[in-house]
């Protein structure tokens, strides 16, 4: 015990040993705004994603209000809502057209401006160079651009507020012909066209980031670090980056074609003789868009969850004081999911009118992808087995990720079965499923990552008390909000409908809709705790030690609040990232950068006495 205290003490001493590595004084706008430092870029992604999280959340609460209380004015801010959003000026009653814009923008913002920038932009930038022990990305300037495309993209998307017809309103999937805005005159920018331009930019941002990640991981690993010495976070981000480079160009091509259909009245996705006021050449195929879109967007589901699977693995190993169970199996499972992710896109299209024979094919490939997912779950459980589990805020969120991912994965089996999907497709069952995966999964994973790396990011500790409160309220309200949505789906409740009370068969669900809305409001407001904690701790948080969680990975070898250039000494890697509770050592962790010999006997690592001794190591562990 005494050695631990000493170690912590030593960490604090080194806490502010900022290191310049020749990065001399730069003007403020190069330090904070157009910085090429990967950690600053990560913070920029954190800030923009947090802002958009609340924008997207606000859209969701409008949707929920309308579903629970159709035709009733939005409380508090209803009278202040713009005239184009409401049925009469000042009435506060949402119009059906605005409702369609809300659901479109909620999905788009949450996926393209929150989850992907958080998971890939923020964690990719922050974790990769630090965890592989290098000073920065391989291509820092490209990295800076990958962030600086996000704000203009967001502004373009949001500027649709000022164009006729408002925001895009064809759903985040934007199926043509609806998204081609048939009937609108050519050469007129509408919300949908702005949506397409905006996503094109976001796609570029993703590609630039991804190319950078792959290059960095392959070329800039610290001395001695083999690929299989990399933490799972880096593996997951690396494989995700490969998915992005393969998938995003396809989306970009599809967006360009749809933009031409929308703006120039070409007919990539429009068949002949549509009954509309505008003239089209025809000869296109609406379902083609769905194939192109889902060819990207199904892998995008994994872009949104694989990095978090990596992060959760690292958090679980650290707080269970155990090696990841089946590290290589975890890597192969990530790779397997990434590969299979490219051949299952058709399961979004079982009812789309594609050849039903393809339904059989895509059903079988989809069912196969459940296998690597379950391997991961079993390995996480195996990691907990015989651990020494400490329930920190980061760990609680990681455990929420695993448990909610189990539910989301199981509900996925229903819709993977094509005949079951006939009935539940486009109902709230699907809505429940994606929220269990993307909120219960991805967002809890993001929270886990924020709680885990905040000390390294800002040099301060987050408040654990408020971290736990944020976790409990979020976890409870999350389940109260999204679990009943399965039930709505079984009842046949269609998604994206403005007023369920129009239908007799949905009349019995009004109470459930109201319940969900109240829980959703609680869920939304719980997130203020997170923001409050982040801001409060920035100023008042306890000063972070160099290695507050006593973890093994390389980022904890860097100073507590590393400056441009990251490390204050040379890093050599001696072992894998998960040597916790090694027999023959006093400490229950053995950092990757610490010299020392060991033998492996029957899946156990045992430390061997070495003349070099542990005392020579910096950080005095």
């Amino acid at each position: 015990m005494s050695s631990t205290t000493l170690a912590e003490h030593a960490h604090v001493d080194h806490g502010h040993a900022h290191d310049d590595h020749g990065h001399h004084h730069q003007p403020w706008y190069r330090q904070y705004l157009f910085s090429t430092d990967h950690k600053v870029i990560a913070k920029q992604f954190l800030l923009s994603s947090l802002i958009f999280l609340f924008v997207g959340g606000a859209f969701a609460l409008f949707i929920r209000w309308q579903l629970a209380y159709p035709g009733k004015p939005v409380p508090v801010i209803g009278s202040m809502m713009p005239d184009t959003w409401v049925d009469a000026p000042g009435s506060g009653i949402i119009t059906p057209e605005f409702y369609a814009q809300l659901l479109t923008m909620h999905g788009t913002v949450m996926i393209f401006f929150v989850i992907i920038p958080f998971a890939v932009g923020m964690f990719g930038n922050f974790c990769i160079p630090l965890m592989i022990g290098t000073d920065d990305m391989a291509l820092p300037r490209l990295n800076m651009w990958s962030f600086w495309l996000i704000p203009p993209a967001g502004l373009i998307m949001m500027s649709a507020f000022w164009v006729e017809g408002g925001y895009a309103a064809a759903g985040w999937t934007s199926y043509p012909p609806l998204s081609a805005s048939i009937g609108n005159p050519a050469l007129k920018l509408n919300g949908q066209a702005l949506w397409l331009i905006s996503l094109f930019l976001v796609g570029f941002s993703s590609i630039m980031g991804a190319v950078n990640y792959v290059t960095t991981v392959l070329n800039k690993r610290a001395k001695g670090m083999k690929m299989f010495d990399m933490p799972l976070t880096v593996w997951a981000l690396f494989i995700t980056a490969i998915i992005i480079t393969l998938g995003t160009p396809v989306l970009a091509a599809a967006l360009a074609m749809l933009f031409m259909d929308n703006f120039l009245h070409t007919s990539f996705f429009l068949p002949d003789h549509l009954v509309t006021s505008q003239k089209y050449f025809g000869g296109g195929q609406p379902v083609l868009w769905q194939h192109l879109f889902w060819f990207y967007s199904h892998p995008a589901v994994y872009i949104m969850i694989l990095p978090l699977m990596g992060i959760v693995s690292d958090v679980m190993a650290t707080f269970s004081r155990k090696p990841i169970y089946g590290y290589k199996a975890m890597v192969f499972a990530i790779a397997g999911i990434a590969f299979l992710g490219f051949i299952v896109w058709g399961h979004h299209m079982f009812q789309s009118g594609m050849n039903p024979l393809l339904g059989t094919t895509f059903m079988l490939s989809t069912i196969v992808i459940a296998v690597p997912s379950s391997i991961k779950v079993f390995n996480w459980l195996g990691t907990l087995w015989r651990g020494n589990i400490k329930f920190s805020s980061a760990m609680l969120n990681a455990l929420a990720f695993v448990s909610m991912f189990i539910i989301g994965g199981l509900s996925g089996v229903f819709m993977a079965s094509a005949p079951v999907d006939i009935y539940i497709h486009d109902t709230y069952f699907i809505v429940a499923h994606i929220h269990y995966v993307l909120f219960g999964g991805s967002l809890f994973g993001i929270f886990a990552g924020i709680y885990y790396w905040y000390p390294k990011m800002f040099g301060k500790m987050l408040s654990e008390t408020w971290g736990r409160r944020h976790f409990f309220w979020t976890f409870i309200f999350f389940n109260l909000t999204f679990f009943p949505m399965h039930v709505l789906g079984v009842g046949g409740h269609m998604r994206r409908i403005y007023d369920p009370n129009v239908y007799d068969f949905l009349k019995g669900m009004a109470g459930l809709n109201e319940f969900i809305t109240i829980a959703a409001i609680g869920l939304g407001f719980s997130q203020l705790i997170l923001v409050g904690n982040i801001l409060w701790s920035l100023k008042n948080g306890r000063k972070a030690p160099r290695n507050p969680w006593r973890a093994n990975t390389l980022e904890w070898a860097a100073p507590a609040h590393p400056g441009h250039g990251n490390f204050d000494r040379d890093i050599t890697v001696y072992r894998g990232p998960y040597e916790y509770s090694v027999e023959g050592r006093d400490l229950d962790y053995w950092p990757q950068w610490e010299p020392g010999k060991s033998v492996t006997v029957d899946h156990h690592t045992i430390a061997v006495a070495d003349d070099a001794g542990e005392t020579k190591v910096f950080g005095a562990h």
Partner: protein
Amino acid sequence: MGDILSVFDMLSWFPENISTFGQELDDLFAIIYYISVAIFFLTFGILGWFLVKYRSRPGHKGYNYHGNNIVEVTWTILPTILFAGIGLYSDDIWEKTKYSKRVPKPDVEILVLGKTYGWTFLYPGADGKFGRNAYTDRTARALMTATNPFGKDPEDPASADDFMMENQFRVPVNANVVMRGSSQDVLHSFFLPHMRVKQDVVPGTWMNIWYNAFKTGTYELACAELCGGGHYSMRAEYQVLSKADYDKWLDGKVAEVAAASAPVAEAPAADTTAAAPSN
């Protein structure tokens, strides 16, 4: 309290099933549901047990163990067998309900067209056969307009008795009803919750939709694919009638159409027959 608990009895929320294959779909849902509930309790049980048993406390230590290939292979193969079983069993039902070659010989054939926002139906009329229209002849798509959505060719005599219905349709009980669905503008999805039928309808293509209802009554049709602000209002009603009632209704319609088309020889507006009023 009962209301709250009923949330956990998910299967009780299904609307009544009235189609012959509906029960098979519901049973498949139930099988996956029970398997999921079992896996849920198993994994959450293990998770909860580990969290309590291996919680950090004084004197307790972690255990350095990197995993075991035999265990990995076991928990790869077991889910594979389970999921493959679900997949193969599902495929039988999928082929039966959706494959084009498995669509039964129609007792009644109806065309359905989605539009923003509503549904139009075309019955073949007295001769039981469709004349030249956008379904029977692709080139007739050129005739499609807002008032003649099916592109009925007024010059084809077989077309004259084909009649349209707006936002409602009727089918006989215990008969194979085959509908060919399309759209005149954007995507819609033809959703009969009580029949467990859902099929997107795509402009430019005709989709096969079939079912066989075993119970009479009035039910609802909904659109399940976002098609604009009025998406929610694409509600329609349909009636499943006994054979006698259906024949009586059909005879009435046929007579009505014949009566309406008789004076057309003199009247100038030929397209009023095409857009025969519903009901």
